[in-house]
């Protein structure tokens, strides 16, 4: 049985903001299925009482003093932008809040 369907891949593509083609959907569905079946092996490990590791460094409380540091100039900030208007980053109309 497939671990992931073509429809699920289409949903993932939408969540990931990737306008994938129909052909890509076919290819990715097959490939992701192979990969997911392989990585699902982590489930074989009995780890119910094992704490997860999110960070490999044993550090806590790495904090910065509340002191101002120089910003970029506006020119630097906007230099890489695809589109700028009124010193702001211009984007096309926003339809949905979030999908």
């Amino acid at each position, binding site marked *: 049985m497939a671990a992931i369907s073509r429809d699920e891949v289409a949903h993932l593509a939408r969540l990931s903001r990737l306008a994938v083609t129909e052909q890509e959907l076919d290819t990715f569905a097959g490939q992701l299925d192979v990969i997911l079946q392989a990585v699902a092996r982590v489930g074989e490990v009995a780890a119910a009482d094992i704490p997860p590791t999110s960070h490999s460094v044993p550090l806590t409380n790495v904090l910065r003093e*509340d002191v101002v540091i120089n910003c970029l100039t506006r020119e630097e*900030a906007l230099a890489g932008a695809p589109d700028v208007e009124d010193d702001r980053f211009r984007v096309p109309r926003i339809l949905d809040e979030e999908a």
Partner: protein
Amino acid sequence: MTTTTLPTYDEAIAGFEPVIGLETHVELGTNTKMFCGCPTDFGGEPNTRVCPVCLGLPGSLPVANKAAIEATIRIGLALNCSIATWCRFARKNYFYPDMPKNFQISQYDEPLCVDGYLDVEVDGKTVRIGIERVHLEEDTGKTLHVGGATGRIHGATESLVDYNRAGIPLVEIVTKPVPGTGALAPEVARAYVTELREVIRGLGVSDVRMEEGSLRCDVNTSLNRPGDEWGTRTETKNVNSLRSVERAVRTEIIRQSAVLEGGGRIVQETRHFSEETGDTRPGRSKETATDYRYFPEPDLVPLAPDPAWVESLRLALPEPPRDRRKRIQESWGLSDLDMQSVVNAGAVELIEETVAAGATAAAARKWWLGELARRANEAGIDLASVGATPAQVAELQTLVDSGKLNDKLARVVIEGVVAGEGSPTEVMEARGLAVVSDTGALTAAVDEAIAANPDVAAKVRDGKVAAAGALVGAVMKTTKGQADAKTVRELILERLGAS
């Protein structure tokens, strides 16, 4: 769309029990942003308070601001919360252009502060509001919608983003659901936000100004029939003043009640409150449930507040506003009800500072809850932002006490002060509003009035003292109201030998 007649609030609440909940976001007044050293000062030119970190440029990394962590712990302590001994930041993933990284660094299942409460007074009763959690996250940038009719997102053809605000530390305070408040739910909601604001202002960690957005509120409301399980809740956003908090709950209770009475069902949704109309409207519906794919922020290591540090912060907390108010109430000699109205108006500190500047408590209260409250209400702003300072109010009262202004003139002077024309003395002089107390000028005006109204004067001479009112009016007219009416009256009676 069918138009239905909405019930009154009393009708609406009669058949239901409301459950409310509040999520409040507070921008901290730190010098720098949450995860970078950019300044947080309000009102800079667009995109001038940004760096690779808060712009989310490739390769940049966050480093947490110690002052923001400390402020959050202090808020948690002031709200009687437990402080986590170990917790992590998490990434909340969703695409939106005001969020530079397309994820927000927030806290998910490991908030910094949990399980507290805040007691508020409503109608002479104490209501304990449970606090679910207090956590820290980063604010978003500001989006300007261009091309639509109203500057709103709907109908806009493009949007412009300024990231100055992106990354400012934002504390989210979430209450537990509050049942059992009955018809008082709107007042309880307002009292909670009012009290919360007092607490945070007292801590000095934020200026908590609702109209500038440094305190923002989302209000959850649901209704159920007595004895039934809690109903489906809606979340009302864009509630940006104390008055609106109350109105939003009231409006939503009325709306939900009408839906339910009509046999309808409440949809769990986000609604937007309109300050202009006072009603709520649904946000665009979401076709799929949002999946934020939270996971521990790998770029930040865990927080593990040292208990000794937390204890030292606890010991340094200021007197809780409620205790302080009790103390103040006694020293001002106010009734519970009077004190309540002072609190509801957000005037405790203003009056306190006005008293400190030399006014009596009664006078200070009269100005702040009277003329100034009226103006704030009209403008739909907080009393503190009305444009007059406590020192100015004290100065105004001094002018009244010394007889330089009468009550009516003082109100005109306030108008000038609020309009930014200067101190009360400056406004009084610039507008030429001082009471005409020079008896020579007044006597002339009185004589003129007597000469112009011989019939009235005759009546007064004949002992019909009440008729003197017409002469007083004439004098006030010629002096453009700048005379003290009592003095004018005495002078008239004296001239006519009727005193």
